[in-house]
């Protein structure tokens, strides 16, 4: 009898959550199943509707493809490097500039501007910035140093991309850190000043430890976004030179659209899918356990 009262309530909540669940089933669930089927099938654009099971052949092909490993290595290195650079720079700027921004919040708007521009457009913009004839960077280097670099050449393309990504996304880290820094209660700073702490002591022993959770989260988000990078890298270098700047996203895109290797592209997707969700759920698990420990 008492259950009868609760049931309509829960049913009404279920009804409210139904649209989003249906939407996800259609637009993610169905693709996930197609992914799984095609990844173990022999399939081409001609045989899309009659895939023939072929076991783990596609996975073997991906596994033995040196380009796949090169792309994985690129994504990992790119994600890690940009995350560390962005967070270091962002942390420094957030703390060093906070006395200015506290009084004039529009300064933050200027610093946040790059976040509003599409990464694809920023990538295209750098084609202009770095262009050997019309780009200002080579021009100024020639004018003042008498030499310029081949920014998108074999040796330097990776580093150019790292700088491009870092300059666009440092503001994100800066914003997070600025907010975390502002959220530190001023009583804590005052109390430590009463205890005789110098400002660098305060930074090292009090402020940075309090900001640590935010720093970890920012590193994580920036690593993930760097790892799955596509837009700016794709428009700036394609995958070149010589496949050296293909991220995993670009590897899958090119396997499908340029080589028509559906099986390989799908198998790589499934690998990425499994790894991503395993890592993310692992992180969620750790985070929720730590939360529980703190409580």
């Amino acid at each position: 009898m008492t259950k009868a009262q609760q049931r309509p309530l829960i049913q009404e909540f279920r009804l409210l959550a139904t649209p989003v669940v249906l939407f996800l089933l259609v637009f993610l669930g169905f693709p996930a199943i197609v992914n799984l089927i095609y990844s173990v099938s022999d399939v081409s654009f001609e045989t899309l509707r009659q895939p023939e099971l072929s076991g783990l052949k596609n996975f073997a092909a991906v596994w033995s493809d040196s380009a796949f490993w090169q792309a994985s290595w690129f994504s990992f290195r790119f994600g890690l490097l940009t995350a560390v650079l962005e967070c270091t720079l962002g942390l420094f700027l957030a703390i060093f500039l906070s006395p200015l921004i506290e009084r004039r919040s529009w300064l933050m708007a200027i610093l946040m501007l790059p976040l509003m521009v599409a990464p694809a457009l920023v990538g295209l913009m750098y084609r202009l910035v770095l262009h050997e004839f019309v780009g200002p960077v080579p021009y100024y280097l020639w004018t003042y140093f008498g030499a310029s670099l081949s920014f998108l050449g074999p040796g330097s393309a990776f580093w150019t991309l790292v700088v491009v990504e870092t300059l666009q996304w440092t503001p994100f880290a800066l914003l997070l850190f600025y907010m975390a820094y502002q959220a530190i209660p001023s009583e804590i700073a005052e109390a430590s000043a009463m205890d005789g702490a110098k400002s660098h002591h305060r930074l090292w022993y009090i402020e940075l430890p309090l900001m640590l959770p935010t720093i970890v989260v920012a590193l994580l988000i920036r690593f993930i976004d760097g790892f799955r990078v596509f837009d700016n890298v794709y428009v700036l270098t394609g995958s070149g030179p010589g496949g050296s700047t293909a991220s995993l996203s670009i590897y899958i895109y090119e396997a499908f659209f340029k080589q028509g290797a559906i099986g390989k592209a799908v198998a790589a997707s499934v690998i990425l899918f499994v790894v991503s969700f395993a890592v993310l759920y692992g992180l969620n698990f750790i985070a929720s356990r730590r939360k529980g420990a703190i409580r």
Partner: protein
Amino acid sequence: MATISLKKAGKQYGNLEIIRELDLDLADGEFVVIVGPSGCGKSTLLRMIAGLEETTSGQIFIDGRDVTAASPVERKLAMVFQSYALYPHMTVRRNMGFGLKLAKLPADRIKAKVEAAAETLKLTHLLERYPKELSGGQRQRVAIGRAIVREPVGFLFDEPLSNLDAALRVDMRLEIAKLHRTLGATMIYVTHDQVEAMTLADRIVVMKDGRIMQQGSPQALYQTPANLFVAQFIGSPKMNLLPCRRSADGLDLSGEGSIRLPLSGPAAPAHLGARPEHLSLVSPDSGDCRGTIEVSEYLGGNTSVFVRAGKLGLINVSAPADTPYRIGETVGIRIDAASSSLFDDAGAAIAANR
């Protein structure tokens, strides 16, 4: 208006028992105050009656109708929340009329009812304002107004005054008492403040750990508490508890003094409960026990004197404002034994001497 009764009503969250098989009957038009320390289950009980919390065992009846499984609106009760819970995006008028609108009443009826209620609560000039433009007391009145317009069979109040400052709380308390007289409605009022309970209630229900410790009129609870918990909880300042043992002709106060008191039967008192106003300061030689004045608080109408009396501990005595005794002085304490209460080892009151 309505009678409300609970028959062995209980509430469990998993293994945790919040309310244990509780029986409670409200007469039509009665004002019952449920009081108890935080975590005693009083708010849960109120929300079970309201239908906001599931009742996991037992039954709830309103006017004899079993409403245990009924939705809040089917119970035809109105509730005033601690935080008022006014809809911030609606004017006072729309806040008060929302329930009527959901019940699909015609607009002119809603208008009439809202304006009548606003008139009663002196809210007419505030009808077009938003909650954020009102003071705490005004918000409280709107919350009450929202309850009135629906003409419920009973009102539920969940600590409605705890967000107000002290002066306003007294005013609102008087308004709620007046409202009860005008409407004559059945009301259940939850609070942790025993002063609110004493001043408002026809009947007080004292709860602890999901159980009713005692219920009765304010006078009954004050004068004849059924147990140590109620004795300590009701009354401000608190009742003094003096450890004691039965002696040949009355009570032995832990060797610090004695009282002659005819005790019958097998009563084995462990504590003598005496309210500060039932004690008086006398010269050291003439009291029932004696001690040294440690603190003396002048309160205007009287002086609250704290006497350190050996094993009896610190005793609070309500003395006249112009009491001649000073801090550090040794005084005697006379105990009005007839007004005191006796409790046994288990904390239950002993009625033998009454």
